[in-house]
């Protein structure tokens, strides 16, 4: 007899959660505590030595956060997950396990502006060298591979352009190079795209966006697909060689297909310290329960607004992969058939000034630097999220000066269209 597979909506509600053993509480309690008592000295030693399953200290793990981790791992089809204080913390924590000074990683040029900054500046100071490639031209990834390459990093749907990345093609490059493919799946969420099914070895999220979904908490998560063999050559000594601080344990040998997640926890969270607060984990869990409903509505609303905008005389071009005729429409149909996400950009015939005036005339859309809220949001990336990039980087990241980005929320689409209509006329 084979096991039956519950569907996505069932997992979004149940995975990782079980009535509390002590109180019977059905919703996951917030274990707002720093630490957990040991049964005895032997128990403490075996927990610290990674020999037993259990809680020690909330920087390393927490029962509320663990429910969130298991739930996201289940939704993404991974073996394990590790939650972090933010999406950016997930990126640094994940890469810390793979890169040593002098190593390289290849990243798609089309990324969230903050990630471009993090990679170009902060990581450079660690001696981790980013090599940029163009996700619209797979050969640039092939050419970027060197003996020092340790990972490839892409976004499934890219922020802010909403463009769709050919995950399978880039996964083939990663596999040939013998390095893991890391996919930031923030914009799609596992409801739209499960990168592991397309060859990703590690999936990252800013939980801040669609998984949380309500604009109330900052958080991130790392999902281990369990697909990568870290011990086949000497490229990943953190995973394949004895760890001196854990009495010589070899992580992959001991933990098998979730060794990478363990490394992120027992080395990454332990040493970099970017742990998620249990209270935020609780808010993310509540958000994720409705992820499939919300994500579908985000997509349906975004498509309606994008279609309306493309017919508007003041609008130059709408870049939404969900529209027929868009250059990413075929990739969207392949990777994200339920919808192309909530995020898209457009340019106005009136250029930069028209963009600025649109933003100030809107009454329902909020002008702020976030995406993936119940509320519809608007921003001018060139002067905000991407302002620290050079003009060339802005254009390469899909954030030219004449461009406005929308993150479509869950309101009635008629009201969103009416708001844009009055703002474009004003």
């Amino acid at each position, binding site marked *: 007899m084979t096991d039956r597979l519950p569907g996505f909506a069932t997992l979004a509600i149940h995975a990782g959660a079980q009535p509390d053993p002590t109180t019977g509480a059905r919703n996951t309690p917030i274990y707002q505590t720093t630490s957990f008592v040991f049964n005895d000295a032997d128990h403490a030693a075996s927990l610290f030595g990674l020999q*037993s399953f259990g809680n020690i200290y909330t920087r390393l793990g927490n029962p509320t956060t663990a429910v969130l981790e298991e739930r996201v791992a289940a939704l993404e089809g991974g*073996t394990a997950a590790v939650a972090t204080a933010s999406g950016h913390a997930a990126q640094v924590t994940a890469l810390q396990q793979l890169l040593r000074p002098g190593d390289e990683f290849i990243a798609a040029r089309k990324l969230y502006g903050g990630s471009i900054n993090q990679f170009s500046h902060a990581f450079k100071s660690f001696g981790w060298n980013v090599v940029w490639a163009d996700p619209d031209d797979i050969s640039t990834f092939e050419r970027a591979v060197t003996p020092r390459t340790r990972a490839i990093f892409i976004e499934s749907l890219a922020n802010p352009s909403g463009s769709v990345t050919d995950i399978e093609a880039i996964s083939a490059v990663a596999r040939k190079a013998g390095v893991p493919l890391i996919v930031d799946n923030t914009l799609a969420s596992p409801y739209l795209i499960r990168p592991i099914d397309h060859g990703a070895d590690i999936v990252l999220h800013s939980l801040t966006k669609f998984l949380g979904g309500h604009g109330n908490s900052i958080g991130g998560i790392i999902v281990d697909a369990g697909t*990568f063999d870290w011990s086949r050559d000497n490229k990943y000594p953190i995973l394949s060689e004895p760890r001196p601080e854990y009495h010589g344990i070899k992580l992959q*040998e001991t933990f*098998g*297909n979730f060794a990478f997640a363990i490394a992120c926890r027992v080395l990454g969270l332990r040493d970099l310290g970017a742990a998620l607060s249990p209270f935020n984990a609780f808010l993310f869990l509540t958000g994720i329960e409705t992820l499939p409903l919300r994500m579908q509505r985000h997509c349906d609303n975004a498509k309606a607004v994008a279609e309306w905008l493309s017919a508007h005389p003041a609008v130059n071009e709408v870049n939404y992969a969900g529209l027929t005729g868009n250059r990413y429409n075929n990739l969207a149909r392949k990777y994200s058939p339920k919808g192309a996400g909530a995020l898209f950009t457009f340019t106005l015939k009136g250029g930069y000034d028209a963009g600025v005036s649109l933003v100030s005339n809107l009454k329902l859309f909020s002008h702020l630097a976030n995406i993936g809220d119940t509320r519809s949001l608007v921003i001018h990336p060139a002067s905000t999220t991407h302002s620290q990039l050079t003009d060339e980087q802005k254009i390469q990241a899909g954030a030219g000066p004449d461009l406005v980005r929308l993150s479509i929320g869950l309101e009635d689409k008629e009201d969103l269209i009416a708001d844009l209509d009055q703002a474009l006329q004003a």
Partner: protein
Amino acid sequence: MNHDTYDDNYIRSILNNVKTIAMVGASPVNVRPSYFAFKYLAQRGYDMIPVNPGQVGKNLMGKPFVASLADIDRPIDMVDIFRNSNAALPLVKDALTLNPLPKVIWMQLGVRNDEACALAEAAGLQVVMNRCPKIEYGRLSSEISWMGVNSRTLSSKRAPVPTQGMRLSLNRVSVSGGGTNAADRAAQIKDDKNNNA
């Protein structure tokens, strides 16, 4: 039988039914995976027997080491092989001389020997390869979930508060039976590598 991925029910029935486990290659060194697994399974109520000819005369958690499977004084349900893949074949041959026969041959994470497996299966034994019984027990009981591991199981029942030495229920609803794309792909990558080597 597919030995790249196992149905949860297969693993669950083995862990629910075996009682006596001989662990070949058990180490008294408390940072070795075999030591963790031995200790964990003993704490979960299995009757554990450490087998390691280099350690005879010593004890592991109060259990005396024996030199070989033939030296065990009672029937065993499962042989857990904590040795390299090449050692698995002679060990299975040894196991098949026991009377009564063990019911299960389990090869640890990283240990796989298809010839040994075929031999054991032909004699009617169940075989698991490249898995850790501690991890599988922790996963199926969801005890492992504290570290964000995907147990691939669901339950709406209130679990008892776990205490030391308690057997945990493994009878949760399975989510995917382990036959995930990811697991298949991992196996595939291993094969590619072996073929290239």
